[in-house]
């Protein structure tokens, strides 16, 4: 169903942050149609965060978004991680399970960062092997997000978007296309963001992310500390035009605004999706 065609808006959600828990537990009327929860914040907690997430799940769809799967790590996912994730999936019944196309360190030393992979055939084989293990264990497909990066490897044999698409094609996983990350990496590494998003086949895209970066002078830094910038909105307009049904997320992790401020960005994403669809049809 295309946004507007059924009288419903685009499926725009927001990242669930604890600062908004009190407001959300009041069940406000909101155009926000779903929430994304950071998996690791709930996998090891049986306390209040999980209680709140379950309450919210009673009313709205929830996607689980991980930051520590380390799908590109040569050691594979950390022992015990998948069992905890599967248990959480059982409790929440998410609409999507996602993580990042990166590695996060080693088993003995987790750096807790989304470290970029070299775009090589060897890395593709490692990721596919790990994705297969993960999807078999969870019994469901996952989607992997393109990360922002501040360096590239001289070993890389292909463009990032070719790497991403090859993994989706050969592993059966989906793509969480972070439009902000495309823009950040494109600016940092000097490629055209439009070419990147155009190269991702629509059928692989399971979700879109929108966030804000910080301009550090020498490079763009993916801080998620502000609203998406105009170039990111324009890139989003370009993508949403051809995939109107895909869930869209406003991601905000630092200097998180109050609920009204966050909701305003969701409303903007809905409006742009409507405009893009109107032009497309």
């Amino acid at each position, binding site marked *: 169903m295309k946004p507007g065609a059924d009288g419903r808006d685009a499926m725009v959600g927001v990242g669930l942050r604890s600062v908004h828990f009190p407001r959300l537990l009041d069940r406000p009327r909101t155009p926000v149609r779903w929430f994304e929860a950071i998996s690791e914040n709930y996998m090891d907690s049986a306390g209040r965060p999980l209680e709140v997430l379950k309450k919210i799940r009673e009313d709205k769809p929830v996607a689980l978004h991980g930051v*520590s799967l380390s799908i590109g790590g040569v050691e594979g996912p950390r022992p015990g991680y998948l069992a905890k994730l599967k248990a959480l999936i059982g409790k929440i019944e998410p609409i999507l399970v996602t993580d990042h196309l990166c590695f996060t360190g080693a088993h003995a030393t987790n750096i807790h960062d989304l470290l970029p992979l070299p775009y*090589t055939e060897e890395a593709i084989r*490692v990721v596919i092997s790990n994705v297969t293990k993960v999807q078999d264990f969870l019994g469901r497909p996952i989607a992997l997000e393109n990360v922002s990066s*501040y*360096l590239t490897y001289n070993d890389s044999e292909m463009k990032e978007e070719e790497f991403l698409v090859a993994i989706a094609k050969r592993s059966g996983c989906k793509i969480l296309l972070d439009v902000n990350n495309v823009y950040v990496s494109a600016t940092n590494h000097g490629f055209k963001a439009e070419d990147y998003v155009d190269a991702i086949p629509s059928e692989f895209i399971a979700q879109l992310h929108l966030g804000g970066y910080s301009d550090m002078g020498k490079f763009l830094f993916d801080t998620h500390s502000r609203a998406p910038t105009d170039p990111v909105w324009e890139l989003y307009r370009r993508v949403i035009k051809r995939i109107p049904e895909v869930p869209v997320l406003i991601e905000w992790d630092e200097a998180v605004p109050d609920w009204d401020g966050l909701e305003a960005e969701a409303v903007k994403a809905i409006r742009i999706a409507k405009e893009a669809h109107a032009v497309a049809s």
Partner: protein
Amino acid sequence: MPSRLKEIQKGFVDSAFGGITAAFTSSVTGGGKLTPAEAINVYREGYPARISEALGETFEACWRVLGDEDFLEACKIYSRATPSVSHNLSDYGGSFPEFLHKRFKKQAPFIKDLADLEWSFKEVFHAEVGAVLPPSDLAVAVNDKSVLVFSSAVRLLHLNHSVHAVWKRDRNDASPLIPSDWEGPQQVLLYRSGGTPVFSFVLAAPEASTLQALLAGRSVSEALAASKGLNEAAARTLFSFIASSALITEVR
């Protein structure tokens, strides 16, 4: 054939903990206007920053007591010396109270107790309460020989310093702490019921010794016998508190 990917990943991890090697630097191109070394440094500096943020969330009162400079410097040194092995940043810092003690015992003799209190608070916050028994069921089920099974969201701390008030102190209160603010041992109970925040209470020694015996699996009569000076009225108050606070999951 040796794995090039493994080599690259090792180079990245090593750069976060040790120095940035020439081999790793020569294998990358910096983004934007960054040199390769500067680009690697973006990630290298990000690691202690994330660790410090996580430690700052868990040990908020220690941060307030020590001040930005000392606390953040301690976080940075600790993060390089103590790799995170968990997928969850909230799990990080189990040995941080001892580390703070070694570093700041002269400046803040109570710092380990304060850090232990904050770490326990975090554990209770995330602990599963489970199905607790209502007071009416407890009243029927409990006798002298009963053993009470407590929810996993209950902690009784025996601290060497009186840090509860320091922990609860208004974050805008900038007046210096003096020894009378923390001197003397203290027993603090932390607990949470389903859907509630974490509660904290300072217990007198007789109540704490009785509760400790109960938590250790002693029967009601054994716990009362082990108590140090708990009179009848105080015992009644203690058991009434236990019953009404939804702390018990089972009576054996």
